[in-house]
């Protein structure tokens, strides 16, 4: 069993929802990413998602776009990110998932990207601009290196497409909670809850809901609707952005925020 499967099995045994935290690797610098990851893990996150930055992240809103830009400005590249993962693996067994864009994988060579990811200790990969239609090679490579290939499902995903995605996905299903790009929002929409209810009976894979989640109430709402976990990115990236000059304050606020969100998943 993969670390991702193990973690969801534990959560089910404890009858609890999971909390998945997203940050961009290298934001604001490769060195500080390690401290931020440690803080998030200490505060109780169940899975850590690391964005591998891309210059043109079309599925992301302004918050994560700017995080990508900060990371690239700090000279973050895939080699440095594999080093970050090695370091995290030195102190934690948390399931780690990469989120990136096709060109980053393609340029390194798909085979090499997946092999390096597996060697470093990455458990799953989601390529934001790779729909199921373009995934043949990635799926094959992911199987070779025992990496979970994670896919997005959106409110506009048809039942036919959903069927294809569920047939090939592993790890968990990443539900995009609303139409739009990533970013923190005030309210959780009914579309989200309906989507969870539509997908739930069709799969045994864990369901994680992301895009627009920022409060413990949001987390509770999606878990109550039948999801296994909630994913938060922009809200944490906002804390990073607002505390760039105050390392201690940044860590305190992240710790406090992640602990609070984790409570929402109970």
């Amino acid at each position: 069993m993969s670390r991702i499967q193990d973690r969801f099995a534990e959560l089910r045994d404890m009858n609890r929802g999971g909390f998945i935290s997203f940050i961009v690797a290298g934001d604001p610098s490769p060195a500080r990413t390690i401290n931020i990851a440690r803080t998030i893990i200490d505060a109780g996150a169940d899975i850590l998602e690391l964005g591998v930055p891309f210059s043109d992240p079309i599925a992301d809103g302004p918050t994560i776009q700017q995080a990508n830009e900060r990371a690239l400005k700090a000279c973050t590249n895939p080699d440095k990110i594999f080093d970050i993962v090695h370091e995290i693996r030195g102190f934690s067994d948390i399931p780690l998932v990469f989120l990136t864009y096709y060109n980053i994988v393609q340029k390194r060579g798909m085979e090499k990207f997946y092999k390096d990811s597996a060697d470093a200790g990455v458990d799953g990969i989601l390529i934001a601009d790779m729909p199921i239609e373009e995934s043949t090679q990635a799926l094959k490579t992911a199987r070779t290196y025992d990496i979970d290939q994670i896919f997005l499902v959106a409110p506009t995903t048809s039942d036919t497409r959903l069927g294809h995605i569920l047939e090939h996905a592993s790890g968990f299903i990443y539900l995009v909670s609303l139409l739009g790009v990533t970013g923190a929002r005030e309210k959780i929409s009914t579309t989200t809850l309906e989507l969870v209810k539509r997908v739930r009976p069709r799969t045994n894979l864990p369901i994680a809901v992301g895009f627009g989640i920022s409060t413990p109430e949001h987390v509770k709402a999606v878990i109550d609707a039948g999801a296994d976990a909630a994913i938060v990115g922009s809200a944490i990236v906002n804390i990073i952005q607002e505390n760039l000059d105050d390392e201690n304050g940044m860590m305190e606020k992240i710790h406090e925020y992640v602990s609070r969100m984790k409570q929402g998943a109970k």
Partner: protein
Amino acid sequence: MDKGRFGRYGGIFAPEPLMYALEELERSYYELKDDEKFQTELNYYLREYAGRPTPLTFCANLSEYMGCKVYLKREDLVHGGAHKLNNTLGQGLLAKHMGKKRIVAETGAGQHGLATAIAGAVLGIDVEVYMGEEDIRRQKLNVFKMELCDAKLIPVTSGSKTLKDAVNEALRDWIANVETTYYLLGSVVGPHPYPTIVRDFQRVIGIETKKQILAKEGRLPTAILACVGGGSNAIGIFHEFVPDDGVRLIGVEAGGEGIHTKRHAASIVAGSEGVLHGALSYLIQNDDGQIGSTHSVAAGLDYPGVGPEHSMLKDIQRAEYVSITDSEALDAFDLLAAKEGIIPALESAHAVAHALKLSQELDREDIIVINLSGRGDKDVMEVARLMGREL
């Protein structure tokens, strides 16, 4: 799973939330494509509104100067000043048939934004145009024209604040509003079905050219030249001639300050393959796969990618791709104005500049056709500035 491929290039590299819209677009397009009523309506607008067919002008002075027969396909005479309207009228009508009430578009130089604003005005659809802050500053005239045509302009402040970032923002808008909004992409780039749709709406250029050259000369040309940014005017004129092996097809990319520098936009000549904005094609990128910044004196060529069909034509060696520097393009801009009284767009001046080089190896009876994709009104202020002239 080889949808929308040109050889190995193209494809649908789009986030899942967009797949519904891309499938809907593909379905609607194939339903309408051969529908007689739709074609009649489109032809009506192309003829009565855009001013098609455009002339194929024989240039006596330029022919004398170059030592071969030179023809210009006059897309500069299309309403709005460029070939862009062929596509925006086609897609505008498609949007209307799909019942979409709002169109978003990206623009670099402003020609596609203006052509979309024009089509939106005449077809009665709201238009919002994403344009990089940097381009808004460089292209004030087109910004004002778009606003006159009642389009709303949205400044883009992310990334390099130019065309590629305008595409990113338009895509993000579309992701958030897929159910009500039509994304009117301006070149033969993007995820399937865009490269096919835009190509089909621009094919009219080559279809007319073939008829015209056969009527005038009774034979096909030696070579056809067109500038290539995303590559829509080039595909438009090339496509009809692809089966005619004897006709050289030459795409001219923006060499900027020279392809040995980092300041150019020659994706095919100096780039490598990768995925940007939904398709696999040649790109300007670094070793990690980050998209590079580009430069060209012609804002319409200032884009790090190129249409996937061009990448295929390059690989199968059916078309040749070359680059022309800023200064060579500026010289050709002057030359065409002085010799023929035609002021070309700086984009199109790249094709004229390469024709000049090519003519050295041609004979008096050789025929070349240059696709004059747009007129230079939008560029005269900038050219005057570069010449140190105050207007």
